[in-house]
């Protein structure tokens, strides 16, 4: 570590690492140097001139945002000259800026407004006409108001440097300069809205939020996005019980300011007119509205009858990729102990079980990578998956790693995914060739000559390059599952330094579903059902018996239904008819199909009983992202008529005569912390909004068959069934591009 630099700012001694920018050094001693164009992490430009400060021995004022500190530097930010300069820069900015703050979305959270309040003059001397341009609609989600724009170029940089989309440019010159989109008058981009978020003024506004409210009229609740498996923190702005905006307002959490199009705009399914508001009960072949009591009583009575007539083997449960850990935990408890069946599964989108088993067997359960590990990595190996679409935050973190500190990215993929632009080596393999490449890398089986374009030489080159790296983070998609995960882990652990791993699963709580044991052969915390000790531990906690034999996996459940062996199916927050492409006849043999859902999905349409579930915005609990980091959801609003899955399960259990004592999701979480291996997380950290990593340890049974783990390959604009109910996600033309399109 190089010697720290010592300097003085406004008489305060400051010690910072070499290479620190003056503006950042000032921050460390609580001295604010105002700026618009400076933005941490983005390239420097010295354009707004707000950060001019006096440095002794320098003839002119210097921009603190471009000045690197040197030893003995004596800086003054509080001289009359500096104060006058700030005032005059603001006066310049306001010459052509319309003072339409009363009707501007940004009013109240505008950096220009704040700066003028703090540093500006009370009146203007500008008597000339202001330059005017009509507002432009760049897309359904992004609008541009040129007169308000102060040309800080943050939008351009975040789009280029943060998103690698390069959708913005600058048109014309001098005072007529303006931001221009990449397709004539239109934007064609990932529609992430980062440009809107980063805009210090109301120049770029959101198509879904504009003119809806004043920012101080809304309630802000920090929660976790419910779409992909990355687990971005987001702040929902709610007014009159309606969500009107999502942005990670305080830039806290693992995603900082990042949100993708789904996180920033795709929450609007919550407000959809098509939300189920009342339970539906099929009467005379038709689903009709019913009371909660009626629906649940009917369900329990029917279940009791089936159990009595056919035994627990006739009942199966399908869980969700989005419901909370607490709900998932209770669901499997309900299935195993109340219904007495292990026929419980969910749509598995990554083979988390094999990763846990491999790391446990290697004694390396400290090698789960977190989201932060990805952006801090010096070397990354990405096998399969298309994070740009399936894991936008992880894609962003990978780009950050490459751009901010020159990390090397190695890619093995059968498709030309967009991240190859950042890669040092990109090994394009033949379709479905990822697993073969991993086995060859691991020395398990030689690769066929036609595996990749560059022949096996390219594979050798990749292996050689990886051996020169250290602390590599390895990320893999559903292409790698079962024994191949084991091969990858074994091989990865031989690389220099601390190799870490991430299995990439699709949805907000895909990881939690596996962690909580929504699996036929695995108890919470990846304890095999066959492990007597583990079983007994849960039995004693729950004061109930758990059937010892593993249940049916999801494919076998469908087979069981077809064969007439399964008579009742309970589905919570899943749409298997669509996900598994079931035909109309697949579920007709059921005597009871119970579905807890937000919408009348293909599966719900077939159900005897449909109950309206609460969305992520309407409930509390925790979710675990694909890296295994647990975060807390916080209830933001209520949706009349709905109940959370947790409330539904508690009610069902009660009707079964169970005396469960949980009063709240937190009670369930406490039990998870106490009982589930790897989940001994500090509750306070969680409650203050941190992402708490878990380190599961267990030896779950091997993957039974290859068709159990598959990703839905959602694009940036889709999110399983949910995205169908988002106006925003369907409103952008880019959503119509073929899957995998790189913007």
């Amino acid at each position, binding site marked *: 570590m190089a010697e720290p630099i010592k300097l003085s700012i406004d008489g305060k001694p400051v010690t910072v690492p070499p290479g620190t920018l003056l503006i950042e050094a000032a921050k460390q001693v609580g001295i604010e140097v105002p700026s618009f164009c400076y933005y941490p992490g983005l390239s*420097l*430009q*010295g*354009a*707004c*001139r*707000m950060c*001019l400060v006096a440095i002794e021995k320098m003839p*002119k*004022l210097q*921009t603190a945002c*471009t000045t690197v500190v040197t030893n003995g530097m004596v800086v003054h930010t509080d001289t009359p000259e500096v104060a*006058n*300069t700030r005032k*005059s*820069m603001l*006066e*310049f*900015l306001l*010459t*052509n800026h319309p003072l339409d703050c009363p009707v501007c979305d940004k009013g109240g959270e505008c950096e220009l407004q704040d700066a003028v309040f703090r540093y500006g003059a009370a009146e203007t*001397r*500008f*008597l*000339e*006409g202001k*330059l005017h341009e009509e507002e432009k609609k760049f897309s359904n989600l992004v609008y541009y108001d040129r007169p308000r724009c*102060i*040309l800080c170029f943050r939008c351009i940089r975040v789009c280029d440097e943060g998103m690698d989309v390069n959708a913005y440019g*600058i048109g*014309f*010159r*001098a*005072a*007529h*300069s303006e931001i221009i989109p990449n397709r004539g008058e239109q934007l064609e981009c990932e529609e992430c809205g980062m440009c809107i978020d980063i805009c210090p003024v109301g120049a770029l506004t959101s198509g879904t939020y504009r003119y809806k409210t004043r920012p101080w009229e809304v309630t802000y609740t920090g929660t976790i996005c419910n779409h992909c498996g990355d687990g971005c923190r987001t702040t929902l702005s709610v007014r009159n019980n309606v969500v009107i905006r999502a942005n990670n307002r305080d830039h806290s959490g693992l995603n900082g300011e990042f949100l993708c199009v789904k996180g920033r705009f795709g929450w609007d399914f919550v407000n959809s007119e098509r939300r189920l508001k009342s339970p539906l009960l099929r009467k005379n072949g038709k689903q009709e509205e019913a009371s909660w009591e009626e629906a649940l009583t009917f369900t329990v009575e029917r279940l009791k009858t089936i159990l009595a007539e056919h035994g627990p083997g006739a009942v199966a449960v399908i869980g969700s990729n989005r419901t909370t850990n607490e709900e998932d935990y209770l669901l499997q408890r309900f299935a195993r102990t109340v219904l007495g069946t292990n026929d419980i599964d969910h749509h598995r989108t990554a083979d988390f079980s094999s990763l846990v088993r491999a790391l446990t067997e290697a004694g390396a359960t400290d090698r789960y990578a977190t989201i932060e590990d990805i952006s801090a990595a010096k070397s990354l190996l990405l096998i399969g998956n298309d994070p740009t679409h399936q894991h936008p935050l992880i894609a962003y973190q990978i780009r950050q790693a490459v751009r901010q500190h020159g990390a090397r990215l190695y890619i093995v993929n059968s498709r030309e995914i967009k991240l190859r632009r950042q890669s040092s080596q990109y090994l394009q393999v033949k379709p479905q060739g990822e697993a073969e490449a991993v086995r060859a890398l691991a020395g398990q089986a030689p690769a066929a000559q036609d595996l990749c374009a560059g022949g096996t030489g390219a594979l050798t080159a990749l292996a050689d390059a990886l051996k020169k790296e250290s602390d590599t983070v390895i990320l893999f998609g559903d292409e790698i599952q079962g024994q191949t995960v084991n091969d990858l882990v074994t091989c990865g652990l031989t690389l220099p330094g601390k190799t870490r791993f991430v299995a990439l699963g699709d949805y907000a709580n895909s990881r939690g579903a596996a962690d909580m044991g929504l699996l036929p052969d695995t108890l919470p915390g990846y304890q095999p059902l066959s492990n007597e000790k583990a079983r007994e531990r849960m039995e004693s906690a729950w004061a109930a018996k758990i059937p010892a034999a593993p249940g049916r996996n999801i494919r076998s459940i469908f087979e069981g239904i077809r064969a007439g062996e399964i008579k009742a199916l309970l589905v919570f927050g899943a749409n298997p008819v669509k996900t598994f492409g079931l035909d109309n006849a697949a579920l007709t043999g059921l005597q009871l199909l119970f579905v807890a859902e937000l919408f009348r999905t293909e599966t719900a349409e077939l159900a005897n009983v449909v109950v309206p579930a609460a969305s992520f915005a309407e409930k509390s609990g925790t979710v675990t992202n694909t890296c295994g980091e647990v975060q807390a959801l916080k209830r933001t609003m209520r949706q009349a008529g709905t109940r959370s899955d947790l409330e539904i399960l508690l009610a069902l259990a009660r009707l079964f005569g169970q005396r469960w004592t949980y009063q709240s999701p937190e009670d369930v979480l406490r039990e998870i912390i106490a009982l589930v291996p790897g989940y001994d997380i500090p509750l306070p950290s969680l409650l203050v909004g941190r992402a708490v990593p878990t380190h599961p340890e267990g030896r779950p049974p091997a993957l039974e068959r290859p068709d159990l783990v598959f990703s839905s390959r959602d694009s940036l604009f889709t999110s399983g069934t949910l995205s169908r109910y988002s106006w925003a996600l369907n409103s952008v033309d880019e959503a119509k591009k073929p899957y995998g399109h790189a913007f």
Partner: protein
Amino acid sequence: MADYRNPMLGSPLEVKVLTRRFDLANSASIAVYVAHEGYQALKKAFGMKPDEVINEVKKSNLRGRGGAGFNAGMKWSFVPGQTTKPKYVVSNADESEPGTCKDRVLMEYDPHQLIEGIVIAGYAIQSHQGYIYIRGEYRYLMDILDRAIEEAYAQGYLGKNILGSGFDFDLATHTGAGAYECGEETALLNSLEGLRGYPRVKPPFPALIGLYGCPTIINNVETLSNVPHIISHGGDWYAKLGTPNNGGTRLFCLSGHIERPGIYELPMGFPLRQMIEDVGGGVWHGKKLKCVIPGGSSCPVLTADEIDVPMDFDSLARIGSMLGSGGVVILDEDTCMVKAAWRIMKFYAHESCGWCVPCREGTHWLKTLLERFHSDGGMPDDPDTALDVSYNILGKTLCPLGDAAAMPMISILKKFRHEFEEHLKLGSCPYEKRAVNVA
């Protein structure tokens, strides 16, 4: 079918170094050039060590002819000797400073002189690639230079193993397309890289990180054209042509209200009064002098009382102005200084690249204020506001364009304040009844 005359009108007071071949027929051809000492300096340079070449240029006190007046040899010496990166020599032929048209004749009448200077500079810093960045409006000069470059390649003055020295150097022209700002060296580099001509944050300076992130020297056409003479005749000889610290001669462009507008090569330190009265034949139509812009429109103006000054960088700096680019603009007694200020500001407002706030907004503000003021709409506070706004631009911008706009404004507002007051008192322009036609 262009229609213009050679602006070299000639004067017995001239000292011809750069322009000595201009009167020869076909002066632009390599045959004429070689017949008149052409490429001899290059041969001589190859007999010297690169450092010796740089020292000779340092000794000559050759200062940048683009306007900033930085010691050329010093600039070259900042280029690192040891580097794995390629190095570049860029000749700045983006001549756009209002009042200046000297590089044009240097390229039109003696392109090989420039080429020889560039190759010597390349040898001095051990660069192997040069570019001549020519403003787009000078298309015919690009044709002339392309032809000259082709000749030089054909005769072995460019390309591989030049004159058997083992030194390789390639040279190409590059055209701009209308942007004053690209005369600023870092904006020029961005432009040469195919980007908008925005200036770069300095440091790093181009000598370390320039074109394509590599060490680069950027010199004005006139600066580089001097180099062969310095090498041929020695730095001391060159230095003695001028005044201390201001070596050599300079091409001065006399324009505006002067009897004999034209370009004259005069020694550094030549008295301004003599330049106007004896070289240029005095103010036109026997009128009185009101003021002089001594070195292109970016320089603070001099009143008629301030012209007893030697025309060199230091003397003009001493009286609060600049030698600039050698564009000497004469304004007679009937000139409205408000209008002159407006026209100058209109230029800067048009040419501001728009990158940084004070220049982008400040020049636009001053332009519109002056437009209104001169169009009979002046307000009593306007002169004070304009002065304050100018000071708020001065020294606050990323590149020198802001200063270039502010400095003439400040000088006019201070030295000709009374003309602003007259406008206010009369409610219209005392010099012309007609309002300014707003373009």
